[in-house]
């Protein structure tokens, strides 16, 4: 579940994150007739975020299927179709709604291969969203990647750039396992490849996922004039996890901060921090700092909502503290 630049892309074009997702799906659907998409308002509407616009025109309503509002049912149907040889993509409109499909995701899709002693396979992708600050309040703003990352048998991808989105999507569809892909709702218009900061000896590692990578990169820019060089590491998939990359950077910089938009407690940052603390124990100058969403249901009021998620300013503060610069 990695997207290796060298092997997959010639690319200089700039496209948006949303276009990258659509392109990946379109290419895979052209290549493989067993790929289909099922979800609410995925066809003519192309999803509320318009990410899938145009697909039903090319592939028809038999392969881009508007479903009833039945998250559990469509996920179950996809599991069965996958077991019978297809490669379904299930669109769960908001990440908050995976709550309704957790039995089918965690008890069925994730376990079929193991429980059957390797005989049956469930090659399917669950596509959903994460992220707050759209003023959508507590039931439309969650980042529940920790739940699925916790369940053996699932792979979990959190692309943070158009480049990775396309690569991870194509890899996920071809994967023989159930893969859950979270897309930050605010990233769809994001353009271009990840900017590469100029070379410098880094003093702090910022591990970040999904749209938090953008926040980390902005923070890194702000830290540079303060004499702090930050290395931003994006694991891209939480399962499997490239622990080596995280630990290597931690050993190099000795100061690490981990960001993910899920609730901070019992979340993804806990695992990443634990992995780093274990792998780089003798190299660390300070405890690994975690930065997740505040442990509250996402509030509606803008003045409150913005307090709940990590911002570049918060990251800069934390990085300064980590480096003993107050």
């Amino acid at each position, binding site marked *: 579940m990695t997207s290796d630049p060298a092997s997959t892309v010639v690319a200089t074009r700039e496209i948006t994150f949303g276009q990258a997702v659509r392109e990946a799906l379109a290419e895979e659907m052209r290549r493989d007739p067993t790929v289909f998409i099922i979800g609410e308002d995925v066809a003519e509407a192309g999803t509320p975020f318009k990410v899938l616009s145009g697909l039903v025109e090319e592939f028809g309503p038999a392969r881009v299927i508007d479903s009833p509002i039945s998250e559990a049912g469509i996920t179950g149907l996809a599991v069965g179709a996958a077991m019978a040889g297809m490669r379904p993509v299930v669109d769960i409109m908001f990440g908050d709604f995976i709550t309704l499909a957790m039995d089918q995701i965690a008890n069925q899709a994730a376990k079929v291969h193991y429980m059957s002693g390797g005989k049956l396979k469930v090659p399917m992708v669950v596509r959903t969203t994460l992220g707050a600050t759209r003023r959508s309040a507590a039931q439309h703003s969650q980042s529940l990647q920790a739940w699925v990352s916790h369940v053996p048998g699932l792979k979990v991808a959190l692309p943070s750039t158009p480049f990775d989105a396309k690569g991870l999507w194509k890899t996920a569809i071809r994967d023989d396992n159930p893969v859950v892909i979270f897309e930050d709702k605010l990233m769809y218009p994001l353009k271009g490849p990840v900017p590469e900061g100029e070379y410098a000896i880094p003093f702090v590692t910022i591990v970040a996922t999904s749209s938090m990578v953008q926040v980390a990169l902005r923070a890194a820019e702000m830290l540079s004039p303060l004499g702090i060089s930050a290395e931003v590491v994006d694991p891209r998939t939480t399962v499997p996890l490239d622990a080596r990359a995280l630990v290597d950077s931690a050993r190099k910089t000795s100061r690490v901060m981990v960001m993910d938009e899920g609730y901070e407690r019992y979340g993804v940052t806990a695992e990443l921090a634990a992995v780093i603390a274990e792998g780089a124990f003798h190299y660390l100058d300070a405890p690994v700092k975690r930065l997740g969403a505040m442990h509250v249901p996402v509030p*509606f*009021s803008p*003045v409150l909502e913005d307090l709940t998620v990590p911002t570049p300013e918060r990251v800069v503060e934390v990085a300064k503290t980590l480096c003993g610069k107050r």
Partner: protein
Amino acid sequence: MNRDQYLTMYAQMYRIRVFEEHVNELYTSGKMPGLAHLYIGEEAVAVGVCQALRPDDYITSTHRGHGHCLAKGASADRMFAELLGKAPGYCSGKGGSMHIADQERGNLGANAIVAGSTGIAAGAAFAAKRARSDRVAVCFFGEGGLGQGILYEVMNMAALWTLPVIFVCENNLYNEYTPYAETTAGDLLARPRAFGIVAEETDGQDVRAVHAAAGRAVARARRGEGPAFLLCQTYRFLGHHVGDVNRGYYRTKDEEQRWRAERDPLQILMTWLIAERIATSEECARVGEQVRAEVAAGLQFALAAAYPDPSEVDTHVYA
């Protein structure tokens, strides 16, 4: 029904209409954060049902919940405040459009999960029954909620335990951008009936018809005869939410125009009131003006109100 009651229904429908027009305007002019799902066109359902309820009866509501909230007696000022994320809002700005609740009037809250409150309504009915009160609970939901399994789990229990809960299905023909016929198999009324729940279809544009049907269902429930299901045929005049402006790909302008011209619940009631000489068109206009002024004042209040203090962000996570 006497003249006052009819005029109250008219005023309530008018209040919802004007409230929603302001919301649309707030959004269009960039003054409202987030989104809102407007109830314009469906006013007769909320008002017809809620006029058959007592203040201490419960309702649960949906993402398209402003109408239910106002119909159950909430006031426009604190609703606007909530929609703007302001401190005096019904939920101190923490809930917003999709989560307005008004405990004092038995509104247990809008819900941003489709059919997410079906169990909650049945649970409130269960509590009412256990407390030996004769309160009832109304569960409003869109026809899209027929896709959610929990509805059937709950209808089964409501029937088994004769709970005083009334399921009000607002069939406005669309699940977001998809015609309901593409997502809904078979005969809608047969679904509740399969569980032994009495079910009735009614014209959701005719507040008198809704009110009569709701009255029958509420009376049964109060008498301890158990749940009922009301299928209200209706239409949303505007988009799925305030930002849904170009709707050509899922429904025609012509269809919208027909509903607006021929099936406007406010027009239908007013025409009838005048024809029956219950009220004059001037009287109706006067009611409208009063409501309009009150709602406008409510909006001014909300625009001027303060945002919550940042320290509010982590209060009320736990009781």
